């Protein structure tokens, strides 16, 4: 952590909202990317990003600098996004989002040779990712979307590198199997 960031965090811990704003300016895109990687829907990702920074402000006093700040923030983002998906499963959707009115039909699954358009492919990817456990999904998103190293992922998930590699391996294997036709022939 550089000196500037350490100062920002310290100010934030003392309740300085301007410091939070600077942190927001620096990280909001990354937070959004992780959130979008989980929910794959714009409005939900924006809601999650907003919630993350509110939570950050309230909990930043607990950050003691033992891990890198961004891994702390990424972990908070991932947990918030996964909690959000759990809540959304219990509540019928209110928003006219991309998936409303679109159903991935059984026919599509039985006909892998069918040419699917962009939207249906995206829905398919989301569905495949949703079949993963939260831990597998987290490491896959950290690795594929944010390009974090194994060490960084281990810090962000609070696990060992070996566990990260194992979750990544089985997560990739499962999603590759579910998206076999698209993965093997390329987009």
């Amino acid at each position, binding site marked *: 952590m550089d000196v500037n960031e350490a100062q920002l965090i310290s100010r934030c811990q003392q309740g300085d909202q301007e410091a939070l704003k600077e942190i927001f300016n620096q990280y909001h895109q990354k937070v959004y990317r992780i959130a*979008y990687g989980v929910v794959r829907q714009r409005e939900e990702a924006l809601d999650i990003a907003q919630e993350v920074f509110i939570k950050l402000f309230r909990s930043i006093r607990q950050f003691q600098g033992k891990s890198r700040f961004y891994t702390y923030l990424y972990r908070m983002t991932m947990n918030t996004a996964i909690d959000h998906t759990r809540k959304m499963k219990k509540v019928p959707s209110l928003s006219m989002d991309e998936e409303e009115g679109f159903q991935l039909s059984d026919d599509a699954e039985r006909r892998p040779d069918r040419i699917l358009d962009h939207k249906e492919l995206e829905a398919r990817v989301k569905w495949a990712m949703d079949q993963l456990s939260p831990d597998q999904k987290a490491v896959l998103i950290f690795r594929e979307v944010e390009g974090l190293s194994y060490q960084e992922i281990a810090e962000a998930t609070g696990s060992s590198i070996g566990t990260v590699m194992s979750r990544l391996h089985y997560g990739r294997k499962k999603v590759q199997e579910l998206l076999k036709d698209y993965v093997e022939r390329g987009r």
Partner: protein
Amino acid sequence: MWKGGGSVKSECSSISRLLEKYFDQEVTQKERSLVEDHLPDCPACRMALDSMQNLRILIKSPVEEAAEKETFPWVWEKVERGIQRKERPGLWESLWSWLDVTSLRKRKILIPAVAAAVILILITAPLLYKKISSYPVPSVVEYVESETYNVMVYELETPQVTVIWLFEGPEEESSTS
């Protein structure tokens, strides 16, 4: 079992365990050499790498596209509001602490006072509700004037919708940014 050294071809089964690490650029220099030495002669391993790459594109590309075009409208403002909303104590807590009702409770005044208020509300509410519900509901839009637009007013009760729609003439359309 393979022998070390860059010139010896390694078996596929050994290399395939390294493929993911290689793909994630987490290999040592020695491991990299082993993999890169093996790949030209192994279509299966090359295909496995291609699959991983395709999977990465499938997962990453939509996120990149979404993040690139996102303008984050009002997100910071909502964060600020969210922080302020949670910092403000609840109305009830503020009221309760301000009243400091513990002394009142000790003097046994609070319960009769609240009971009197509840009785008063219960007696007057049905009468007032009847009075209120008999008022005719006035239209939401009293009047509309426009020399520029043709205007339509849509007013529905279920759901409660009031929309004033302005139909632009050609002059307005051409001058609109």
